[in-house]
């Protein structure tokens, strides 16, 4: 029978306490969860019987529910959905072989939670505004690039204009990151930023925030949002620290 892995847990409590806590949470498909431990770290798993529709969206959402429930009580590292291992022995082996790496990552996320922030814009309106500010269009003059004006040069000029606009937008996004980081300096969260994910999503950011600073963080994003009414802010959380786990086991 396969085992599905949910999370790596920091378990300083006694094994009985951990078992009681985990027993209160049902795994996916309503199967009991149990833990396999080594020193002060455990792995939460449950049995998984293969069937035809074993991996669907609902199951993935249910998996997230389990991680969320565990994270209410324990510091943990979520494991990516769909990680199946053959036996308890192999899970235990995984734990002992990678103990140090699990320990370091658990320390990094202890008493912290994650927030996601997407900054969106209406690309056409926003790019017009930015380009007007930076006078991008005026900067691109045909004679600077070409001696003659043909259909080909027009095409190339459009491309140059587009590239200039993208550069300007990128600079704007970099400034936005600097502004957000400055605004959150008192809260001092760890952060990761992805710039220009799509033309409308200017920024996709994640923050690792101390649990006792959650409200302060939400408030700070709220006030930042008020200063930028030309942008849409999509704040989600709090989440278990999915985006701040740096472990790839091959």
């Amino acid at each position, binding site marked *: 029978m396969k085992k599905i892995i949910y999370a790596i847990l920091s378990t300083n409590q006694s094994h009985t306490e951990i078992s009681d806590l985990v027993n209160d949470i049902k795994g996916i498909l309503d199967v009991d969860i149990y833990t396999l431990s080594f020193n002060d770290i455990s792995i939460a798993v449950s049995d998984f019987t293969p069937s035809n*529709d074993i991996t*669907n969206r609902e199951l993935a959402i249910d998996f997230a529910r389990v991680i969320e429930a565990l994270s209410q009580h324990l510091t943990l590292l979520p494991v990516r959905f*769909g990680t199946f291992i053959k036996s308890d022995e192999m899970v235990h082996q995984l734990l002992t072989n990678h103990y140090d790496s699990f320990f370091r990552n658990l320390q990094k996320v202890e008493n912290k939670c994650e927030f996601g922030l997407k900054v969106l814009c209406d690309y056409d309106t926003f790019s017009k505004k930015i380009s007007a500010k930076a006078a991008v269009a005026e900067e691109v003059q045909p004679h600077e690039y070409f001696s003659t004006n043909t259909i080909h040069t027009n095409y190339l000029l459009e491309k140059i204009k587009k590239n200039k606009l993208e550069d300007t937008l990128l600079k704007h996004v970099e400034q936005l990151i600097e502004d957000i980081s400055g605004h959150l300096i008192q809260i001092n969260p760890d952060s990761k930023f992805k710039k220009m994910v799509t033309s409308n999503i200017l920024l996709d950011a994640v923050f690792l925030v101390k649990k006792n600073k959650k409200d302060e963080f939400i408030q700070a994003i709220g006030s930042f949002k008020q200063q930028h009414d030309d942008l849409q802010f999509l704040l989600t959380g709090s989440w278990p620290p999915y985006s701040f786990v740096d472990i790839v086991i091959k």
Partner: protein
Amino acid sequence: MEENVINQSKDITIVEILDRVLNKGVVITGDIVISVAEIDLVYVGLKLLVTSVETMQEKRLTIVKPDQEKK
């Protein structure tokens, strides 16, 4: 505290959940892991969902922008 700062949309929350459970967290690969073909299908579905965050947000903007309603 400004309560409406955190997004409450169920659709967007689901996209965010799926993005996290499928793309983030501890990654375990290699011989130790049993591969499951159906996982790929969940990933395909997710890609469609993630792109729909923009669409969902755009729809909302269309609804709430007063100057657009007048047109």
